[in-house]
């Protein structure tokens, strides 16, 4: 029995520290002893009904809980990292805020509102300009690359030395991808991939480290150019969304920590709440620039990000998205020599689709397309998941990842060249605009159809598949292309390069949609089948099967094709694709979020969870601070635990050590606030002297935001540790609390809707008994696959 008691105590102690358990156990235990004698006495028997002593391993309410292992194999989906912190969406209503409101009054409020609109305008413009630069770079570099390659092919095909242009292609791919991959792997790993999972986490309220820094933006921009020019099966749309988010976070703060430059503007927006609002607007502007879809952008930020419908924010966001698409349109039109024509609303332009008439009997066909898309999407996700796990387990070091990216670049070129070489699909010149018609083995006056697909950017290929007339491609070449591109794109996503998955999936989907259209035409020779219709539906189905987005994806596709009348087929397809895909696995973004062990809160609380109470969910031994606290104690506590919020409680009435009590809640104070207070030495030698902190205002806290120093960086002399600090003016005096008998759904709703970070749990007399944070709630995860459903309790680790 003593053995088990030891291990439990051991566990409790290790939970409050990031250090190795083996070496520091003794020290932590001694710390805990100190703490429990001074003001932490946990073992007061209280009237909790469910204090039955079943083993802690088994979950209580039919929740599947694994036997907690000591070690986890990396690459598991059922784990949460303890490293992620939450954003503070809740405003801290302390004295300083009241002071500021009183001093500045209504003019300040109005001024802030005007500033918000101005910032949104800037966000729209800057995001569009970044999109413009990326687009132009990709276009120009691609043009040069493919023109030179064509020259080389034309020259060497007659000399029987086709390996020279092939190796040239491989080499150019590798060189270009190498640059981007080095940047991503060594300079900013968070810029890898599309960035949408990271932005989604940020908007959900998780502080993903380094995700909205200017360095990330630079790496992302260069990375996406190199990835697309390097011939990888990736798109530039996802990275645009991330870029928009970074732009928003940067502009709204009026300073750059990376360049150590403070412009002394917009100080009042330096808090998590305002920053998150701007980031959601920035992500929307990014979507809008990427797809020319302003409404789709707004809906994207609503669907992925914000926790409730904020009318004013949505309106501002919409303004930002419209500005963004307009600016991009102007810039691109001017660049292409058609200034004022405004015919380039976004980076991805599927081309104007004619409204395609459809009959009722076609709806089942669209559903069938949706099912195919859902299954292919699930397969895509499965392959990508397996690859991601492999990458996590075996490809850890940056240089290995760079080598991998280069190998994939070489393989992409190989794939393309082999297809051109082996499938001799020739088409007469001049039937449709081909930038680089490559003859290869075709007769004179013809060009290789596959070379035309491979020797252009993927966007142009999507357009070809959508708009080319029936019979432009042989079914066999489409089939081979679909298989190759499907595998290449799932292989590419997750490499250490920044590229998205929208375009590759649209391309794959458009290709198999066209293939199915050809098959339907074979079966029904009397009808004229419109290949554009089925290609578009196929593209939507494939993309919907992979990303599983609903509202925003529908609107984005409608807006890029410019046809509202196609909405019903697209909605039906996307819904069926999502349902079919969800039967097998999660959407690709959720898979990557789970692999990163991010505690993301879903839209809804787990069902059938009303019998789980706050007393089970909460973390129990709460580390509290007294309203007037000893500086030494604060420093010690901050060094001991990694928590970010501490309940502030009344001092105990009597100094009786034996009787253990919970103490009455007075407020909540954050680690960051304590750090700033310690840094500025807002404390007194004597607890009874009057407090003279008139010069303290909100800007003291804002100037350090968002990167506060750690407690170890502060220099606190020994004599200062005897001083005392009054926390009352700085703490949040009225935090949201819940009684310990509150159910999980209730807790979840409060937490998610208000974007809370810390939620103290109190007993009947308002005494703190526990604390709920994001990780405590996020560990209850619902899974539903293959017709089954259940809830699982995840395990935490601080080493992921």
């Amino acid at each position, binding site marked *: 029995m003593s053995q088990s008691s030891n291990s439990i105590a051991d*566990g409790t102690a290790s939970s409050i520290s990031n250090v190795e358990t083996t070496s520091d156990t003794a020290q932590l235990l001694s710390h805990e002893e100190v703490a429990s004698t001074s003001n932490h006495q*946990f073992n007061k028997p209280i009237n909790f009904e469910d204090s039955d002593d079943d083993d802690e391993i088994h979950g209580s309410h039919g929740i599947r809980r694994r036997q907690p292992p000591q*070690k986890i194999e990396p690459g598991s989906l059922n784990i949460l990292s303890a490293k992620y912190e939450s954003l503070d969406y809740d405003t801290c209503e302390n004295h300083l805020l009241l002071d500021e409101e009183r001093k500045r009054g209504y003019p300040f409020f109005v001024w802030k509102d005007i500033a918000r609109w101005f910032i949104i305008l800037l966000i729209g413009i800057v995001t569009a300009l970044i999109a413009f630069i990326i687009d132009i770079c990709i276009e120009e570099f691609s043009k040069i690359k493919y023109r030179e390659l064509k020259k080389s092919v034309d020259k060497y095909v007659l000399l029987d030395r086709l*390996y020279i242009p092939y190796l040239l292609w491989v080499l150019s791919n590798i060189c270009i991808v190498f640059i981007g991959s080095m940047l991503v792997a060594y300079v900013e790993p968070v810029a890898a991939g599309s960035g949408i999972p990271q932005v989604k986490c940020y908007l959900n309220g998780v502080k993903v480290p380094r995700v909205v820094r200017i360095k990330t933006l630079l790496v992302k921009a260069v990375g996406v150019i190199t990835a697309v020019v390097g011939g990888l099966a990736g798109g530039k749309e996802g990275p645009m969304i991330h870029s928009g988010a970074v732009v928003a976070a940067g502009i709204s703060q009026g300073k750059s920590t990376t360049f150590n430059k403070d412009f002394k503007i917009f100080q009042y927006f330096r808090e998590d709440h305002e920053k998150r609002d701007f980031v959601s607007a920035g992500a929307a502007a990014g979507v809008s620039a990427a797809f020319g879809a302003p409404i789709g952008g707004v809906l994207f930020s609503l669907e992925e990000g914000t926790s409730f419908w904020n009318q004013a924010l949505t309106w501002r966001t919409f303004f930002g998205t419209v500005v963004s698409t307009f600016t991009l349109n102007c810039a691109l039109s001017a660049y292409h020599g058609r200034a004022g024509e405004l015919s380039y609303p976004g980076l991805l332009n599927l081309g104007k689709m004619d409204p395609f008439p459809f009959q009722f009997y076609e709806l089942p066909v669209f559903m069938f397309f949706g099912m195919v898309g859902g299954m292919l999407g699930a397969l895509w996700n499965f392959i990508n998941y397996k690859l991601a796990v*492999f990458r996590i387990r075996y490809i850890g070091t940056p240089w*290995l990842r760079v080598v991998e990216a280069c190998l994939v670049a070489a393989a992409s070129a190989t794939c393309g060249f082999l297809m051109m070489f082996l499938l001799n699909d020739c088409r*007469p010149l001049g039937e449709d605009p081909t930038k680089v018609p490559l003859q290869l083995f075709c*007769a004179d006056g013809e060009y290789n159809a596959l070379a035309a697909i491979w020797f252009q950017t993927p966007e142009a290929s999507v357009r070809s598949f959508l708009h080319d007339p029936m019979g432009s491609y042989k079914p066999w070449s489409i089939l081979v292309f679909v298989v190759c591109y499907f595998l290449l794109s799932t292989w590419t996503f997750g490499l250490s390069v920044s590229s998205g998955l929208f375009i590759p999936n649209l391309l794959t989907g458009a290709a198999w949609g066209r293939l199915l259209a050809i098959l339907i035409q074979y079966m029904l020779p009397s009808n004229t089948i419109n290949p554009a219709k089925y290609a578009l539906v196929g593209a939507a189905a494939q993309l919907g099967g992979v990303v599983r987005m609903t509202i925003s994806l529908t609107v984005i596709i409608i807006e890029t094709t410019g046809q509202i009348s196609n909405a019903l087929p697209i909605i039906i397809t996307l819904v069926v694709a999502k349902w079919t895909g969800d039967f097998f696995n999660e959407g690709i973004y959720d898979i990557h979020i789970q692999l990163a062990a991010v505690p993301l809160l879903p839209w809804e609380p787990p069902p059938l969870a009303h019998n789980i109470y706050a007393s*089970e969910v909460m973390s*129990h031994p709460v580390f509290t601070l007294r309203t007037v606290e000893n500086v030494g104690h604060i420093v010690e506590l901050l060094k001991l635990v990694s928590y970010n919020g501490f309940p502030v409680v009344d001092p105990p009435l009597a100094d009786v050590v034996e009787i253990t009590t919970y103490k009455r809640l007075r407020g909540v104070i954050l680690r960051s606030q304590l750090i700033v207070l310690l840094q500025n030495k807002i404390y007194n030698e004597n607890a009874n002297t009057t407090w003279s902190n008139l010069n303290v205002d909100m800007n003291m806290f804002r100037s350090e935001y968002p990167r506060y120093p750690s407690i170890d960086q502060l220099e606190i002399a020994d004599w200062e540790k005897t001083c005392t600090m009054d926390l009352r003016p700085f703490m949040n005096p009225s935090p949201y609390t819940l009684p310990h008998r509150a159910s999980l759904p209730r807790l979840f709703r409060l937490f998610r809707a208000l974007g809370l970070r810390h939620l103290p749990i109190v007993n009947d007399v308002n005494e703190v008994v526990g604390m709920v944070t994001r990780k405590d709630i996020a560990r209850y995860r619902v899974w539903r696959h293959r017709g089954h459903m259940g809830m699982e309790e995840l395990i935490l680790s601080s080493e992921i």
Partner: protein
Amino acid sequence: MNGFYLALFFILQYSMKLKADIPNNNPQNWDPPYLSKDPEPMNCTTIVNAFAQYASDLTRCSIMYARPITLCENCIKEYMNFHTKYQELLTTVVNGTSCKSMFISQDRLDAVLEYHDNILSIWDKGHCNACYDWSNPAAPTLSNQTVHFNTLYKETNNCIQKYTAENKSEVCNKCMQEYLQLDDYYKTLSEDAVGVDSICMDVFDSMNATRSTWSKTYNCCKLRRSPEIIFLCCAAIISALPLFYYIMLRYCGPIRDFPNVLKQSRFKQTILRSINRRIN
């Protein structure tokens, strides 16, 4: 390129205006009954009559020379007549009444304008104007490029015909020189190497026909295909590389320590511990 032709077209139109008073000596075959009573617009009727005649001439010519396409070269006379007459119709003013206002945009049918546009659309679609040198807008001549192309084309064709008569299998070798010359010259004609949007249709079609004969009938492009063993070997090696890389990483990679599970601090554990303490 389109803009250039548009500009050209306008210049043309402008210059036509200056020549609007060319005496019209076309015979009148038919008088519209409702206009014959009115003596003054008779002039307009004459013009329309002539215009109808030219329209039918141009249509006939276009159809006659449709396959193989030589209509640009053969119908220039008809085109010029047609075009000039139409400009005349637009610009003639008789006693303050313009002919345009009588025949064009008067009703829903608008037959004159519709036929004009339809007939002209064939001409424009074929970029026929590109065949000609328009330095003298009244009398266009075949441009130097077209003439040169035609020379080369005739040479090639003659060569092919000559050797076909002698020995069919010799065509490829013997005529390669001429064919390549023609092909290269054709490629210089347009900027985008496809030529669909700027080259005169006569030239375009001749080239297409030649290329088709060359590469399909005589199969002279089979030389392009070759086994390319080295290329296939390179491709095989490069596609095998990632596989080796992954296998190597899987079995030879450094073994890393697995992350530890974090024990969570929960109320139940604390209760248990306190009970244990008391027992001990």
